[in-house]
């Protein structure tokens, strides 16, 4: 899962369509949501 050779395979003609910055931000927000909610419920579990 390293950075590896992902760059080489990217077709040049499609450069603009492979800009996935928005996607990246969206999924990372999703990940943060999962993390925060899990720790929130775990804290509730521990408090009981």
């Amino acid at each position, binding site marked *: 899962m390293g950075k590896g050779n992902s760059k080489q*395979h990217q*077709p040049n*003609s*499609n450069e*603009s*369509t*492979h*800009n*996935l*910055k*928005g*996607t990246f*931000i*969206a*999924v990372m927000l*999703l990940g943060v*949501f*999962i993390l925060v*909610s*899990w720790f929130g*419920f*775990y804290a*509730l*579990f521990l408090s*009981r």
Partner: protein
Amino acid sequence: MTKVQLPLSKKESRLYMAFMWVTYISLFVGGLMGLLQTLVRSGKYTLPFNIDYYTILTVHGVILGLVLTTFFIIGFQFSLMGKTVGISDKQLKVAWLSFWVMLVGTIMAAITILVGEASVLYTFYAPLRAHPAFYIGLALVIVGSWIAAFVNFRQLYVWKKAHKGEKSPLPAFMVIINMLMWFIATIGVATSVLVLFIPWSLGYAETINVLLSRTLFWYFGHPLVYFWLLPAYMAWYVVIPKIIGGKLFSDALARMAFILLLMFSIPVGFHHQLTEPGIDPTWKFIQVVLTFMVVIPSLMTAFSIFATFETTGRRKGFKSLFGWFKKLPWKDVRFLAPFIGMAAFIPGGAGGIVNASHQMNALVHNTIWITGHFHLTAATTVVLTFFGITYWLVPHLTGRRLTPRLNKLGIIQTFIWTFGMTIMSGSMHIQGLLGGPRRSSFSEYAGGEQVATWINYQIAQAVGGTILFIGILLMVYIFIQLTFFAPRGVQEYPIAVEEDDAEPTPKILENWYLWIGITIALILFAYTIPVIDIIKHSPPGSPPFDWLIGR
């Protein structure tokens, strides 16, 4: 792939519509029961004619959880197969057989429940005993679905023989994965019903092994929810890109996600049994780890969906970071309904991780949080996606069009559903965290502050349930319009194609022996030792109890 969509003949369309009919009749009947439940639980309403709460609860669970889902899924999947690999006359006949076997089973089970002989809920936990007709009816539904599965397998096999060396169309590949998973999973519940329940309910066996029956049920019970989810994923991967004017993000990644779902959906049933006695906690934890693995294909799916949106938007020229998002076709109900389904899967999935977190399960186990959870995942994510499919599938099959007026009604329906479900599922989640139990009629228990708080949330659930029922009425109206009254025309069957310069899909993704082999190996790993333990250390069996369910 799928350069040319196959036309659906009139004969085929009739079959697929038959499945849709059962779906929408079920929606109405099951939804009405749901409404009555929320009203009873508000404490302000009692059922007429001495009808028992648990009878309508059983109808609700069986009709919506087992019947509506299975009929819609099999009908939709048949149409995907018909569109991409075709169906022969002989296969069509056998497909009709599957429909009738399932329908006879459904009617048998439904009547048994309605006359009060099977108030055992859809999980039918032993040693509560229903009338044998209930178990036989359920067995027929499963057998009917197996017939459908084998027709699907045959369809792809025939296509492959005629298209040597070509990769199978993606939708067909996905259908086969789902039916494989379904077949492997239902072997568990079928064994339980045929070997344990039917002889015992008929009186041939005096006792039943309760823990074994529950373990076999949950071996099936978790893949069951993935059996609902995978058709929604099919729509997200192959239908939604087309509706928004884009192409497949990645054929290979979609296949990979489905393979992972096949492998990790089944060996995870213990996460429904985390607080049960008689199962070694180490094996519970092993299945918890496997449960967490099944999150990975959903993480892949989330990326894939956003990427499809962004790629499509950027190709249309939206340059800003989130401009592509604003310009999605929000006014097209074929997009909006599934989109809200996707959004609901964010809290739904996060909640699912909490449920499966081993000892943390005690926080929520059998509280109404769980009911809130699957009303978010199944009744919102899956159901809104199924509604989204209905808007184009039904007119496509009946040779009509989704008119702007019906589209608008659909959008209103989607908002009603979202609003009602937010209230109902939200208050279920909160009440569950406060300890409120699921599957319970109205009760003030020992009274006190805690119970008073629960009842307030139950009133909120009745408000949400009422709004949802209005949504159901509207959806049934739309279905009838699309079936009989919408103007004649051609409604597109949206299936996205790959990018022209897409990378070739690795051949290994269609190595069925490999994936089925790993799936079976994982199941054997996760279940062999604990099941032997359960059988070896089983206590004296349980005799049946009839009077407890009012028989």
